[in-house]
């Protein structure tokens, strides 16, 4: 039997989509969470000096999206055909670009850096959000299945539902102009395996 160990912080951030794939798949895994104090002692053990890392039978795999794709494909949450898999990847990559676009706002909003939160929300977050959310709403509309790619949940859907939930926690009503995305979040979170996971997972601020 394969042994999986996720090395990450006690945060959702780049680890949560991976955890939710394990939850959907009903797959046990060791959910290691480093505190900020412990982490420096382990940094040199990690292939690229960063987290998350997924340890699979002793082999350490870095990079959140590489891990997400690896477990997504292994457990069938990454798209059913090769073209669908590429489409799921494309959405995941677009999310990374989007995260980079609003990073300047995010680090201030969660207290990692000083700055004018209001000003950055308006100048950085809102334009980035509108561009991304419009594209995703359009994809949901034209795909017509309630999911972003194909006719069942993939890790692209997890990236979206986790983002909408997280940003709504930070700024209530964040996605209210995008009813299709609110509906999508409800749909994903109601999947029984996820519903149970969400009710029992450890809390994290983001």
């Amino acid at each position, binding site marked *: 039997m394969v042994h999986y160990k996720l090395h990450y912080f006690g945060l959702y951030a780049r680890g949560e989509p991976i955890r939710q794939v394990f939850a959907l798949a009903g797959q046990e895994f060791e959910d290691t969470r480093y505190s900020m104090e412990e982490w420096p002692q382990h940094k040199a053990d990690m*292939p690229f000096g960063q987290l998350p890392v997924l340890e699979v039978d002793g082999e350490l795999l870095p990079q959140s999206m590489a891990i997400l794709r690896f477990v997504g494909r292994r457990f069938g949450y990454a798209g059913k055909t090769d073209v669908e898999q*590429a*489409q799921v990847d*494309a959405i995941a990559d677009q999310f990374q670009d989007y995260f980079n676009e609003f990073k300047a706002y995010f680090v201030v909003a969660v207290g990692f850096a000083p700055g004018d939160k209001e000003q950055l929300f308006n100048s950085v977050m809102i334009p980035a959000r509108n561009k991304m959310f419009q594209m995703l709403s359009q994809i949901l509309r034209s795909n017509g299945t309630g999911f972003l790619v194909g006719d069942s949940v993939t890790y692209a859907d997890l990236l979206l539902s986790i983002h909408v939930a997280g940003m709504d926690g930070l700024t209530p009503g964040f996605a209210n102009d995008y009813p299709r995305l609110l509906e999508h979040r409800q749909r994903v979170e109601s999947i029984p395996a996820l519903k149970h996971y969400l009710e029992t997972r450890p809390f994290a601020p983001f």
Partner: protein
Amino acid sequence: MFCCGYCTPEEEDSQDATSSKKNNSSLGKKMPMKLYYFDGRGTGEAIRQVFKLAGEDFEDVRFSMDEWPKHKADMPFGQIPVLEVDGMMIPQSAAIGRYVAKKFGLAGKTPTDQAWVDACVDQFKDHYTEINKWYYTALGFANHGDKESLYKSVYEPARDKFYDFLQKRLKKNGSGFLVGNSATWADLLIADHMHTILQLKPDTLQRFPEMLAFKKRVEELPQIKKWIATRPKTPF
């Protein structure tokens, strides 16, 4: 969704019968894949090199800066590169690179090798984001300030961190390539990036002799050597 955008979603069903007839030519051959990008290397070149390394045909569509605005709305995320496969449009350079590489066996031979190829590509993307302020200023696409001081404050620390990891990886892997024992698209992507970096700053990678040897090794692969000699010469 992600289809070529020439019909609205509501018309899709009625178009299906006719469009499938269009795609199956009388020769019964599948249409080659079509890559849309600028007339440059940028984030499109590694994809082209995957086709070349695999010896596979593709349509290499290159938009000029003047033409591009007219096509922007056709692209799923308003950007290029985009790969068109049987009428389906796939955006995002890494998603395309992986799709094409997988098809031709250049994405890693086992699932963990594939994950490692992905990890190297993603680490490269992080590096690319980190150096952006200097890189785009040096290439003339942006003006984030004084090129030389950006080089010192932005590029040098990022470079050292990134290439240290890659050299460690090469040493651990031992085949002369980043993953497995033959070239993958991760090798093509990083070697091509190094090409642009060395054009901008010829001495900047002197501290990384294994990486310079790696770049040469990739460029000497026969199909890549041939492509480099014959491809359009562009500044980026």
